[in-house]
């Protein structure tokens, strides 16, 4: 069930860097946990996941501007800032 389980790929997707020991440990633990999930794979389940709540428009927010934090607060809690903006290492085009 967990074939194709690629810890390097997962770590990259999750933006985590793992040591070799961590990779080995997580790979084996995740394998074990996923093994336990076999019951889910074998279960006889309904075709759809109905039952989620649906709301009507009465719960929507009206288009009234509300309070802001202020750039001073935004930059105060930021790890690094400059000129009212949050500073990060240089972003190269679509690095994501």
């Amino acid at each position, binding site marked *: 069930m967990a074939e194709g389980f690629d810890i390097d790929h997962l770590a990259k997707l*999750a933006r985590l860097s793992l040591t070799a020991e961590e990779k080995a440990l997580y790979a084996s633990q995740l394998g074990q*946990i996923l093994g336990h*999930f076999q019951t889910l794979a074998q279960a006889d389940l309904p*075709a759809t996941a109905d039952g989620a709540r649906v709301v009507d428009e009465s719960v929507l927010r009206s288009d009234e501007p509300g309070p802001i934090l202020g750039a001073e607060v935004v930059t105060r809690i*930021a*790890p690094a800032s400059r000129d009212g903006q949050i500073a*990060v290492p*240089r*972003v190269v085009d679509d*690095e994501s």
Partner: protein
Amino acid sequence: MADALHELSAAELGRRLASGALASRALCEALIARHQAINDKFGAFTHLDEADVLAQADASDARRKAGQGRGPLEGIPVGIKDNVAVKGQPLTCSSKMLAPLVSPYDSHVAERLRAAGAILFGRLNMDEFAMGSSTENSAFRKAFNPWDLERIPGGSSGGSAAALAAGLVPLALGSDTGGSIRQPASHCGVVGLKPTYGLISRFGLVAFASSLDQIGPMARSVEDCALLLDALASADARDMTCFGPSDRALTPAGDARKLRIGVPKGFLGKGVAPEVATAVNAAVEFYRSQGCAVSEVELPSADLAVPTYYVVATAEASSNLGRYDGVRYGHRSAVSGTPVEMMTASRSEGFGPEVKRRILLGTFVLSAGYADAYYVRALRARAKIRAEYLAALAGVDVLLTPTVPTPAFKVGEKAADPLQLYLEDVFTIPANLAGLPAISVPCGKSGRLPVGFHLVGAPLSESKLLAAGRLFEDAHGYAHQQAPL
């Protein structure tokens, strides 16, 4: 010492404060002194701003004097789990990732507590980002069970339960995603209630798994638990999943002797320790002796609950915790380079092993090629489990089981085996998957260690759960119990 302030219930403290026999400042000073004396032994609190607490107490006393008291919680301290935002206080979730963060805003429940005149008292220890069942996953320090300092207090609201059991506060907030209020309540001999999903606003509760998380009250008695629940529940336009209380009262209501109690078939087969089985069977017999109809109910998909829960919860968590990247707030790594390298390093340094494990698991179950086999199937399984519970609860008023299969285990005992730890939640998880209210009430001891039983009801049946708990509590000696420290 029966009259020591830390031993009194919130209800009794409220009466004394109202009569003028007690000032909030005196109460808070006593609890601060107790905190200073014993908190280090078991690490219930990770932060307490004494000056702020006393300032709140003085403001409360002044309101009282001016005849502007705000109700039954006026002047009463409430401990806050460190995943609930209080403006001006740390909001760390017991994680290194958020260690630098002071919340610039109030959660809905913080606003409710302020509006009720309560004292927002300190930050309670927890498993990092509420992921765990032992509070061993706190990045700051482990918490211990006040009844036995070698054992875990449960989790993730372990700090809340330990603080109550040790008499550090009369009331505490917990949050419950798969049992995180009820399991520590059971292990520490206190009462914990997870409300119907949507009864209490999640605005300001740091998300672990959004479709399962719910804030709830914890106390040393059912009555106190009801008092706090009533203050917390209200509609909030900032949470689209919150519908607020119905007009049904949140206090214990109805004649608990008329309740129909369902006992799931075969629950004692699930690795339940003999002392736990004995205590819970005694609770069943107690209700039968009071006139309740007790019957056995079938929940055929019960075995699906744990895998379903861990797929749904970790999937949501992997996304919810994406925002912690060292850019806008919280921990940023000193590793520079590209933004990707900075974010990756910040996350790798900021998160502990259990959080990383769950992020990886959640990332996997949502990833291309696997989402259908895991995440989508889990949603379908969840719908099935919900339907079975609602069907069962059409025939009975409450379902009764142990809260946890075994009493509190030793610190470190299950640390190496995450799967074993996940199975701790087997009785509590279905209520989260189905969005149902559930309560854990103390019902005995295994040696020194408290044991609790667990009641699940239909949506918005909190008053029934409270009434049932109250009936049991009144007939037994487990209310207001504190660990001998």
